[in-house]
C-alpha cells in the first residue's frame, strides 16, 4: 500500500465553447518499479499507478496506461477540447487496487 498518495489537478474554471484548454495533473506516489531490491536482496514488489483517466460529463477525454519506467510523482499535462460545461473527473488506478479520484468544474464562458 502506497502511502502519502495525494492527487492534484490544475484546470481552468471556464473556457469558450470548443476551446482547447491545458490541464495539469500530478499525483504524489512512489511508483515502485518492481526492479529494485532491498538491503537483503529481496525484490521490492511493483507498486505503481497503472492507469489514468480524465472524463468530461462521463465522456472519456484521456485514458492513459502507465508503465514501470514512469517516475515518482507522475505529472501529466494535456490539452482537452471543452464542448460543454460540466465536471472534469480524474481517476488514478493503483496496482494495489486503490482508486484515487478528484474532480474539477468547468463552465462555458
Amino acid at each position, binding site marked *: 500500500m502506497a502511502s*502519502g498518495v*495525494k492527487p*492534484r489537478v*490544475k484546470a481552468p474554471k471556464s473556457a469558450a465553447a470548443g476551446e482547447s484548454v491545458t490541464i*495539469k495533473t*500530478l499525483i*504524489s506516489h512512489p511508483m515502485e518499479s518492481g526492479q529494485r531490491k532491498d538491503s537483503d536482496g529481496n525484490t521490492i514488489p511493483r507498486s505503481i499507478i497503472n492507469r489514468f483517466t480524465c472524463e468530461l460529463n462521463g465522456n472519456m477525454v484521456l485514458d492513459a496506461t502507465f508503465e514501470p519506467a514512469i*517516475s*515518482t*510523482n507522475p*505529472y501529466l499535462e494535456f490539452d482537452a477540447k471543452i464542448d460543454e460545461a460540466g465536471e472534469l473527473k480524474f481517476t488514478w488506478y493503483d496496482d494495489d487496487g486503490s482508486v484515487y479520484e478528484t474532480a474539477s468544474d468547468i463552465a462555458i464562458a
Partner: protein
Amino acid sequence: MKTKLLQGIAAATLALTAGTAQAEEVIGYDLNGEIPVVVETAAPDHLDGALNTIRSGWTFRDESTKTMQMDDFDNPGMLAVEEAEAAWSTAEGSEGKSCADCHGAAEDMAGVKPVYPKYVEAAGEVRTLQMQMNDCRENRMGADPWKYDASAAVAMEALLSSVSRGLPMNVAIDGDAAETWEEGKELYYTRTGQLQLSCANCHEDNYDNLIRADHLSQGHTNGFPVYRLKNTKLNGVHSRFKGCVRDTRAHTYSPGSPEFVALELYVASRSNGLSVEGPSVRN
C-alpha cells in the same frame, strides 16, 4: 595590481557586450503570475568589484527548468513544502506543542528566511535556520532534533523559504556577525583538495563557463533549498557545499559544522539583493 586592473576592464567589457547594465534590477519572472522575482541586480558593496552584477542560478538554467520554477503546480519542490505544512501544525515532543502554537501561520514567517544565517544574541553565535529550528524542537517542544539537512529539516526550511519568495536576501555581515563572516570569506577563497580549487575559482572566475557538462553559476544561495533534477529531492545548502568540496577531491566539512555555517553566511551575503527563490528547481 596591473593584472587585476586588466581583469577589471575585461570584466567590464564582458558585462557591456552581454548587455548587462550595472546596478539594474532584472525581473526574471512573476511567480505564479503574481510575485516579481529579481534574478539579476548590482552586487553588494562588500564584493568590492569581484562581481559587477549578481545573477541567480535560475538565469543559468535552460528554459524547461526555468519554467518549472515559475508555477507552484509545476515545481516538484512544493510537494515537500506541502509535507512541511502538515508538520508545521502537528504537535511533537514532550511539551505537546507544534510550530504553529508559538509562531502562528507559516505565512507569518515571511521575512525570516532572507536574514538567515544571523547572529543570535541568546545563543552567542551565528545560526542557520536549521539550527534555530532544532533549538525550538529541543527547548520549546521537547522533541528530538533533526539531523542536519535531513529531509524533514530541509522540507521545513523550504516551507519557511517559500513564504518569503520575492523578498530580497538581506543577511547582516556587520556587528556580531562580522567575525564569522570573515571566517566564511576566508574559506570561500581558500583552495582545497587535490585539484586545488577554491569556491571563487569556479563561481567567481568562471561562472557561465562549462566545467565538463555543468554550466557554472555564481553559486548563490537565494534558491535554497533546491530541488535538483539529478536526485529528485530537496537539497540543503550544506549538502551542496559538501558536494562541491568533495569535487575538489578534499575531505569535506560536515553539514552543520561551524565551518559550513560561516561559509553559508558569507555565500548568503554575496546574494544580498536577489529575491528568495527556494524551493527552486535546478539541474
